[in-house]
């Protein structure tokens, strides 16, 4: 009865990500939407404000490709490995062009998204006391409790134009299920004007309806559903594939050099038509290395109530 929201990645990005808009691509280590990031690079999106708690390789690549005007974050690095060199080059040296930054703590970013999802003009939190960050980021303000008079801090809502969320599965109406680490994806989706969901598998509505508590993002707020198997590599998808820690290490060398970064983008992003091209190029050996043996949850009984 309802119209399917399934689009190709190309269509979804072309339709919903406009130059100059504010995009959030969440996923805390897990479920980082790399396939969508690569499509934004292929479509030469420009002047984006890129939001993520941890920019990770996905934003390093997008900044290196010239997509960004600004990055909003709370911890910027290649976790456990080192720096995001493309992002640092843009911030420090303006290569390929100057990129602004706006930073918070993890707690602050999470509360900005919560406020954004809840349509609150601010969210109070017990962070930033004694920190220098409020001195350089005027968005972080002091606030007095109307009951006790005590001082707290406040952060403003974050309301991106588009959220791009990767997940294990969704139906064609965008009802999206996710397990493993869920990060701030729910808040990011509710906080954003548009939501693109990319998934490992599009499943029949019955699968979703068989376990509604598993649904993190309701189809109500989803604009496009894209099937993108292996769409989070080199990050991971719980139960589907492992994090490619080797690639995170390799990236340290790649992003250090403009020429290597360009070569990477040409070969792995611009040089392939779509995610399927990337997966073919990755090859079976790597995919096999990253595929875990199965560990199934027990089903639960919802009951039939007539």
């Amino acid at each position: 009865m309802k119209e399917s929201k399934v689009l190709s990645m190309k269509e979804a990005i072309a339709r919903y990500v406009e130059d100059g808009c504010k995009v959030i691509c969440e996923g805390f280590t897990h479920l980082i939407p790399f396939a969508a990031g690569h499509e934004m690079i292929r479509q030469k999106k420009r002047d984006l404000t890129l939001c993520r708690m941890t920019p990770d390789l996905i934003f390093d690549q997008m900044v290196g490709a010239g997509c960004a005007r600004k990055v909003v974050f709370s911890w910027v690095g290649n976790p456990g490995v080192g720096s995001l060199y493309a992002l640092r080059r843009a911030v420090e040296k303006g290569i390929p062009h100057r990129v602004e930054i706006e930073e918070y703590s993890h707690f602050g970013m999470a509360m900005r998204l919560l406020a954004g999802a809840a349509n609150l003009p601010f969210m109070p939190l017990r962070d930033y006391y004694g920190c220098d960050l409020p001195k350089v980021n005027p968005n972080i303000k002091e606030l007095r409790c109307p009951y006790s008079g005590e001082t707290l801090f406040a952060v403003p809502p974050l309301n991106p134009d588009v959220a791009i969320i990767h997940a294990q599965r969704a139906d064609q109406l965008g009802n999206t299920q996710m397990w493993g680490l869920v990060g701030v994806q729910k808040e990011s989706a509710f906080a954003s004007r548009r939501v693109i969901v990319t998934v490992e598998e599009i499943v029949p509505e019955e699968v979703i309806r068989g376990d509604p508590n598993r649904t993190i993002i309701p189809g109500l707020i989803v604009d496009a559903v894209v099937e993108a198997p292996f769409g989070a590599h080199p990050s991971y998808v719980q139960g589907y594939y492992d994090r490619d820690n080797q690639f995170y290490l390799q990236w340290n060398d790649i992003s250090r050099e403009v020429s290597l970064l360009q070569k990477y983008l040409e070969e792995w992003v611009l040089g392939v038509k779509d995610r399927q091209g990337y997966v073919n190029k990755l090859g079976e050996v790597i995919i096999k290395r990253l595929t875990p043996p199965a560990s199934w949850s027990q089903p639960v009984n919802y009951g039939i109530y007539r």
Partner: protein
Amino acid sequence: MVQKGEEMKDYSPSEMMIVRAARELEDGQVVFVGIGLPNLAANLAKRLHAPHIEMIYEAGVFGAHPLRLPLSIGDPTLVSGATAICSIPEIFMYYLQGGLIDVGMVGAAQIDRYGNINTTVIGDYHSPRVRLPGIGGASAISLLAKKMLVITNLTKRGFPEKVDFISTPGFLGGKRERDKLPVEGKGPSAIITDLGVFGFDQVSGEVVLQSLYPGITVEEVRERVGWELRISDQLTISPEPEKEELRIIREELDPRRIYI
């Protein structure tokens, strides 16, 4: 809810209310649904002119596929086969406060000349003559849904000039006062009763009788309203329920006739 003295008609006042409420809903709207008549109205609309209505239940259910008529706001039949469940804080923060709800429907123990709703106490708050259930989710619906319908029976006691307690704001002292509230909800759009339907004056926010049900007179309505009721210049007679509407209500939605 079938009233005595209505046997002449081949439909009940409740059925008429369901049909009238359903007609207020538009295709594609996101509706915040309570149990009873609002649930029946939303489901009727969905089966007829508004197939793309999305229903959100206050208990935290989206995309419900109930196999029976829900008897409580948290009926398990709303959960099995739904597309998403969320917590109560999420329903209020992300759905209502987040601005996702187009229409909400609420009941009223008292409603006044400016559409203010009392569901808290009759008499003084601290020593009430009658203690009512309280606000529940109604104030949030009135303030945060883009549009609100009130569904209630028309009784003299229920329609005083001024409610004893504003549980859920209508137009307060008048539309200008309501417009000052910094919220999405711009005040109730209609009161659907068992005798007719009221709207609100666009300028003052005062209750105006808009439509009578077949066989009901203006006098019968006036008798039950506690102030000098305004009657619309374009007063209409609501068309009777259509056969297909009654068939759906009786055969599909409430076959055990619990609410009708």
